[in-house]
């Protein structure tokens, strides 16, 4: 992507993650995926359930062991087994999807928000004193828009949106440089979702944060991210600038994903539905086991023999994105306009 002298903030290079499956066997949840996030930027990870997007984020923070490839922070290679030092954990924080389960219901909000600060210490490795901690917690809670008395209350006394603000405050209290946002708004109502997204944008502007923004919702990712990585069954389908991926998708899977996302406009939606109907009628078969083929063949209109036999390599598509597709030229040429309208 960008040629700079300094290493990117976070870089994953050819990462694969295996999950134990049955008694002896393993299954590849993420297969040879790489990306980089520059300081202050946002990378969107898009995919359906089972696409490996959360697993990839877990491999980054050390919750899932890396079977192949490298995870680097500031160019420093991290332990593949998942051990991360305090410096890493301070720099990279995680906000989970479900704010009900990510906060301990038996502890006050102040306790939960202070915990990472007490466990990880400050950037100089020292722990701030009790007054210092209290002041930092009050500061950060105010920063995410919670009332002053929030610290002494319990998670159950807050709404879903407020709880997600608390979870964000807990991530920010150690002044991280990258925050992994794992489906942070998908459990929230539409109006609350907009509030939280605005807060994240504002925090990024003010604090220079980078985000790894994971979502199944292309609309949300397009709004938040400058770069997008589309995953399907653990493999990269397409990556590139958000504008290009959304405006001129060059992989049949990205196109299908876009065509399936409903838009709040009956006329546009009707056009998309018709564009979609042609595909749906043409291909409907069970997914083939993952092997040396494109993982999308069973749902792809353009699939030919080569797609079944040879795994497509990452290459530049006609629309300028990076894509793993043998037939990307045809995919771009046959894209129905309704899908990107």
């Amino acid at each position, binding site marked *: 992507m960008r040629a700079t002298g300094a290493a990117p903030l976070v870089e994953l290079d050819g990462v694969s993650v295996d999950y134990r499956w049955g008694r002896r066997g393993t299954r590849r949840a993420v297969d040879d995926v790489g990306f980089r996030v520059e300081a202050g930027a946002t990378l969107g990870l898009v995919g359906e359930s089972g696409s490996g997007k959360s697993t990839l984020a877990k491999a980054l923070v050390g919750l899932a062991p890396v079977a192949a490839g490298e995870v680097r922070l500031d160019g420093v290679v991290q332990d593949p087994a998942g051990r991360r030092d305090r410096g890493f954990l301070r720099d990279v924080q995680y906000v989970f999807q*479900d704010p009900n389960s990510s906060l301990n*219901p038996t502890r006050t909000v102040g306790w*939960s928000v202070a915990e990472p600060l007490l466990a990880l210490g400050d950037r100089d490795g020292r722990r701030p004193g009790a007054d210092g901690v209290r002041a930092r917690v009050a500061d950060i809670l105010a920063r995410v828009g919670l009332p002053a008395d929030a610290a002494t209350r319990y998670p159950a006394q807050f709404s879903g949106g407020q709880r997600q603000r608390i979870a964000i405050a807990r991530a920010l209290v150690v002044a991280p440089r990258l925050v992994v946002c794992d489906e942070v708004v998908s459990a929230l109502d539409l109006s609350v979702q907009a*509030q939280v997204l*605005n807060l994240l944008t504002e925090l990024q502007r003010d604090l220079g944060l980078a985000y790894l923004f994971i979502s199944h919702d292309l609309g949300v990712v397009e709004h938040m991210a400058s770069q997008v990585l589309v995953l399907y069954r653990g493999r990269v389908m397409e990556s590139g600038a958000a504008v290009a991926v959304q405006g001129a998708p060059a992989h049949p899977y990205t196109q299908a994903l876009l065509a399936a996302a*409903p838009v709040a406009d*009956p006329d546009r*939606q009707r056009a998309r539905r018709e564009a979609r109907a042609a595909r749906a009628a043409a291909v409907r078969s069970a997914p083939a086991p993952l092997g040396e083929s494109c993982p999308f063949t069973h749902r792809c209109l353009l699939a030919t023999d080569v797609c079944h036999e040879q795994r497509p390599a990452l290459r530049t598509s006609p629309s300028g994105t990076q894509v793993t597709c043998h037939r990307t030229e045809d995919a771009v040429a046959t894209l129905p306009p309704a899908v990107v309208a």
Partner: protein
Amino acid sequence: MSATVAATAATAPATAARGSLLRGVLATWRGRTAGAVLLVVVLACLVGAFVTPYDPLAQDLAAARQTPSGAHWLGTDLLGRDVLSRLLQGGASSLVAVLVAVLVRTVVALPLGLAAGHLGGRVDQVITRVVDLVMAVPTIVILLSVLTLFGNDLLIGMAVFGLLGSAGLVRIVRGAALAASQELHVTAGRLMGLSRRQVAVRHVLSRVRGVVIVQTTLFATIALGVQTGLSFLGLGAPPPEPTWGGMVGEAASVVQSYPWLMVPTGGVIAITVLALGVLGDVVRDTTADRSSASGGRSVRRRGRVPAADPGDPDVLLAVRGLEVAFATAAGEVTVVRDVDLDVRAGETVGLVGESGSGKSVVAKAVLGLLPRNGAVVAGSAWWRGTDLTGLRGRGWRGVRGSQIALVAQDPLRALDPTSRIGAQLGELVRVHDRVGRRAARVRVVELLEQVQVIDPAEVARRYPHEISGGMAQRVAIAMALAGRPRLLVADEPTTALDVTVQAEVLDLLRALQAETGMAILLVTHDWGVVADACERVVVLYAGEVVERADAADVFAGPGHPYTRALLDCSPDQPAPDGTLRTVPGTVPPPDAWPTGCHFAARCPRAQDDCTQEGIPMVELAGSRVARCIHPLVPAGQPVGLTLERSR
């Protein structure tokens, strides 16, 4: 997403009790009473160990077998000893014995259970095996041999009893720790660089506390029973040393001639056991899930005013003036009120709202599926001449399933995990069609084909866990279709699904509608789904219908400011400066609805008259009817829904 108003309403009172377990327990009269009784018993026995009105061993044969008097408050026993003094001193040793058993059990079981549940793997395997072994050991045999070995030392006996009992607690703690370890705050703890032991202590232990306390109170009652039983049998402290069990034994031997003696001796044991049991019960209630907080309560439906049937033959379902209330610990809370809506044959109506708007409550009320603590307190839901809200039990036969069917959000929960898909569908077919097994099997395949399952015969042989979420939702829809319903109530049918699968399910619903002519009431929070599927829209906010209109009119320009605000929140329509438009503030909870317009506090167009009195539904341009007196499109006059349609 579809956290219903029921849950929200129930949360409020339980929330306050979450702060402190002790405060929560003392907040109930049962907890206070049980606590007070236990405190009195324990204090009396503690004091009684040192100070008693009489020497517990002093015999006075002249005063034997006395009923209560000023001198002997609880009478005297066979040898004229003071019963109260003996109870107090015997109680001290009994309670110490119970305490020993409970302490040994907790100290042994807690770390083992936590380790097994939280660490898993080898540790878990070893601990579980040992626990299984211990549980297979006959407790009473071991106990009797230990007592024989140690010369009837009851304390050692009770310690062994606690050790044996710890096996059960290990299992329970392991289960709770395993569940707590799946929670994200435990993962979050690992991401803070906490060691596994620190995570276990800081995050898992606090979650198993409730279940441990409940189990401990239960075990204390059992230990008390065993302890008295052993001394009843003459094991433990030898006479004349007073023990509760020994005294019951003595009373039992003369129960014919001197029945009084059984009253204080048996009574104190009964009261202590009862108090412990009640305390455990209250602790469980306090730490239990919030959803069960209002378990036993129900809404009184006195004086329900049904609404008249509009009698429009085109309309399948006519809801009029529907009001639903839930019973909570804080009293009865209205969660939905004055809801009017129509569903005509063959059309799809979207019921749109955020969580807490009451959209799921309306859908459930129509199907008579409100939770036990909820009820329709006013209004009606007319289904072709029948008021559904008046139906009970058998009355629903012939309506639910065959006239109106439900598709729920989570398809896997709608399916029985222990039985094959074909068997589940077949059972429904046999009920609805009254046909034999063979005919049912044909119809099952037909139904699965109807929901576009690729290989119906193969899918029919599978169990629910063997199919994907999208396939499960297709099967759930097939189950709903088994009775050939005329109305399908779909409660967030695609919320749990991926977008590509959601598109397939929406397409399927449309195809089925074209094929069968059934109507669909689609509950959703997603404007994209509304745009895709619905002809008409009903928007709910804080328990009220705020707008009803054709979908095209809503998207072209709604009449109610809330509808506008909700449409504008969509991330693909940011404001010119790139931020997303938001609605300031939050939805008011059902017990804090304001006078007048529920949305006024968050509304950019609100004026003084919005909060004066209830806002009527106002007919606006096009098909729009909105509960707003300062609407975004020109207003007409207040109308009821029937008027609007018959004009």
